[in-house]
């Protein structure tokens, strides 16, 4: 995912006040679109990370698998985009659950160290991306056919795909938030996140909750991957940067709550788009890392402090 997808060209010098306002509104629109995407990714990483304490870098492989699932269904098999969408989400969720059940759970049962779990995750991420390249080749894969149109409102323009993606991300984050705060399953997830041993003691089946959060988080990543694949292309290492930014979002906003994670992701996306106004894209990335560094050093609990979590 290009960090500043569809950013307006900052070189056109604004000639009047109205022009500046127009450009600003345009940037705000793009910022919201981009911010919601990163908020989605941050939440998807957060729900897995905070509940199971797994630094799940193989999330990037889940992302790529979702992208290729869309390509296989809608392009190779020639089925509809809707089926491709379903395939993306389902494949992502299944893959996330598989890796939890077959790998992380085994490692935890063997009381593996945090480092051991992280290294296995790295191994999966590296091997998986290489395997995708072996199977599908290094060339990027396109999934055309989305009825994309540019909507204009005065000078502000946004594509229907951007709008759909942002809306879907918003709905997904909202749905998961409601799930976590309003339902008994959500309470169980919160209990496991806060204190897994105590949760187990009061009869919560921790391993099933872990599986559930992997399914939810992976499906959320699958949603983001689907939108990117439709808008751009799928390729083996496509998940690396989005997941990286998602992780940054989590630590930026605060790993204590989904609010923190989503806000961190959103701020990150906004920052990237707005830095495009006066910086080149790469300098924007550098700016993000600088902000991250400052946050990590001076406010390690993130922008939003939370009583739950560390």
């Amino acid at each position, binding site marked *: 995912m290009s960090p500043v997808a569809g950013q307006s060209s900052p070189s056109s010098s604004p000639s009047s006040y109205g022009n500046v306002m127009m450009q600003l509104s345009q940037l705000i629109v793009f910022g919201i679109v981009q911010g919601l995407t990163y908020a989605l990714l941050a939440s998807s990483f957060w729900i897995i990370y905070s509940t199971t304490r797994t630094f799940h870098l193989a999330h990037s492989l889940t992302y790529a698998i979702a992208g290729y699932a869309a390509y296989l269904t809608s392009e190779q098999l020639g089925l509809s985009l809707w089926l491709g969408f379903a395939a993306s989400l389902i494949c992502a969720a299944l893959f996330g659950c598989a890796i939890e059940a077959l790998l992380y759970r085994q490692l935890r049962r063997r009381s593996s160290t945090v*480092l051991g779990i992280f290294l*296995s995750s790295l191994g999966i991420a590296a091997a998986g991306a290489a395997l995708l390249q072996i199977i599908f080749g290094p060339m990027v894969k396109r999934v055309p056919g989305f009825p994309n149109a540019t909507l204009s409102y005065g000078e502000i323009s946004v594509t229907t795909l951007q709008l759909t993606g942002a809306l879907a991300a918003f709905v997904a984050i909202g749905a998961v938030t409601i799930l976590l705060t309003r339902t008994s399953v959500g309470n169980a997830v919160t209990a496991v996140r806060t204190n897994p041993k105590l949760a187990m003691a009061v009869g919560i089946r921790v391993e099933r909750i872990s599986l559930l959060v992997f399914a939810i988080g992976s499906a959320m990543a699958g949603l983001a991957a689907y939108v990117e694949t439709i808008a751009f292309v799928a390729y083996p290492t496509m998940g690396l940067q989005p997941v990286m930014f998602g992780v940054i979002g989590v630590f930026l906003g605060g790993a204590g709550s989904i609010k923190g994670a989503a806000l961190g992701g959103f701020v990150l996306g906004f920052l990237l788009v707005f830095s495009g106004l006066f910086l080149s894209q790469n300098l924007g990335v550098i700016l993000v890392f600088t902000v991250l560094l400052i946050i990590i050093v001076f406010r390690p609990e993130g922008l939003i402090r939370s009583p739950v979590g560390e």
Partner: protein
Amino acid sequence: MAGSYLADLASQVTFLIALTVSLNLLLGFAGQMSLATAAFYGLGAYTCAVLTGQGASLTGQSLFAPQLPFVGGLVGAVLVTFAAGLIVAAPAARRVRGDYLILLTLAFHFLFVTVTSTWVDLTGGPNGMMLPPLSLFGFEITTTDQAFWMVLAWAIAVSLICWRIGASPFGRILRGVREDEVALQALGKPTVWPKSLTFGFTAAIAGATGAVSAAYMQFVAPTTYSLDLAILVAACVALGGAGNIVGSVIAAVMIGSLRPLLENTGLFSSDTAVPWQTVIYGVILVLCMVFRPAGLLPEGIGFASGRSRKTLPGEPRNVVDLKRTEKAAPGSKRGDAEIVVEVRGLSKTFGGLKAAQNVSFNLRKGEIVALIGPNGAGKSTIFNLMTGAICPDEGDVVLRGRSILGEDPCRVANLGMARYFQHVRILEGLTAIDNVALGVPDQAGEKLSRVFLSPVAVARREREVQVEAMHQLHNVGAAGYAGETARDLAFGQQKLIAFARLLATGADVLLLDEPTSGVDPRSAEQIIELVRALAQAGKTICIVEHSLHVVSELADRIVFMDAGAVVGEGTVAEITGRQDLVELYFGT
């Protein structure tokens, strides 16, 4: 570069050896998860390229280029990467650990990649830049065979240096950092500088290796220094065995030979061999983490602790040996012995919770003071306040007439007040004797420079340290399992070792947090005897205990706490005579 294909392959493997071995110091010994290996490697390569380059990119653009000889580029690379390592370590050494460190080093990696592909004027951007042919002190290296010998010499030197560091007392500190930094600081060992130094050192080796490899290939480009490389090196460390240098060399040779083997068996073209190599090592890494998490050669196999087990010096001296002063009659001691520690009006509030309110008491030389009270009375908090683990809101702690307020636990331990933790905080991955050896103060070999500059003095001191550690193990009656890994010992045995470790510090004020809880009765008796003997030997002791049996056996004086405040003070008889306190203690 002309020369044989085999020498070229061997050189590539040798670069991997140097990277793996140096990362093992940071990842395996010190337990710091760094994903910045490729970034440091690349930073060294680019520094060398910029300093020695001809000032023209592939596209003919002119670049900044001082055109130094290769040695200049190498020195520059070492300096730049060492500094970069220290900078990355700055947040890492103090506050950032675990997952944050992964994120931090990952961010540094992406930052490096972004900068190298963006700063076209300096680095030639995505197209990379050329380096002049390799020459060393006027001697032109023209074939891959010559280059291989040079690279091999470098890798051997790096391996030996890293092995020496790992086996030294400095290496022992690093392993202690990996297991439990808090415990190490409580023993009076600083952890921040050893960690930072290891970061810088590992980065500098990676940087120097990068410089050599860049000069060897005569070309640098951002794609060489990918995250895959960082993962590959971390995988080699894990496969070979964290904390085992020999294992790292073996794993690097095995993994490094994968791709050439795949290519030359004819199964894969050179295009598909690269992803297949990644698949294979990724799978091996995962399998290894599941089935053999300690790696091919686990820590301590072959090296390091092998020697320490052979030198088991010291006669089995008994606890009684500590008895240098005759026990005075309990009554006469109180009041006239020298006051060693004064706790003056300590207060601490956590949110709305008053954990300590105006707590004052004195500790006298040779006296055992028991701090008792119901759960949550603030006893452990007082220890935390006294040792500087947390800072009080008000009050003062005076050790031998000197305020130690604001000192960190490490400094407090060095001033002679050491602490025994309720949860033992044994360094699980280390042997019993290594645990105790970490308690011994003033070790020459804990300075990295002295490991190399005065090896004789370091070796002599290390023999003394081993003798001292063994002596302390004898004292607590744990000499029998000196060579066992602490993780494999029973809880009672671990407590004895933690005790030996505490004694090894030579501190004369001992703060004991529930030394007998969770221990079988025989070990408990042993510990009680030990504490009594220590007091008789002139140590100043404060003990937090729940068992009234232990308290009545040991204590000269009791300080009774409730809800963060001292509610009573006196002899065992005086305290047990007060009905209100007995009710408070046992509940009504």
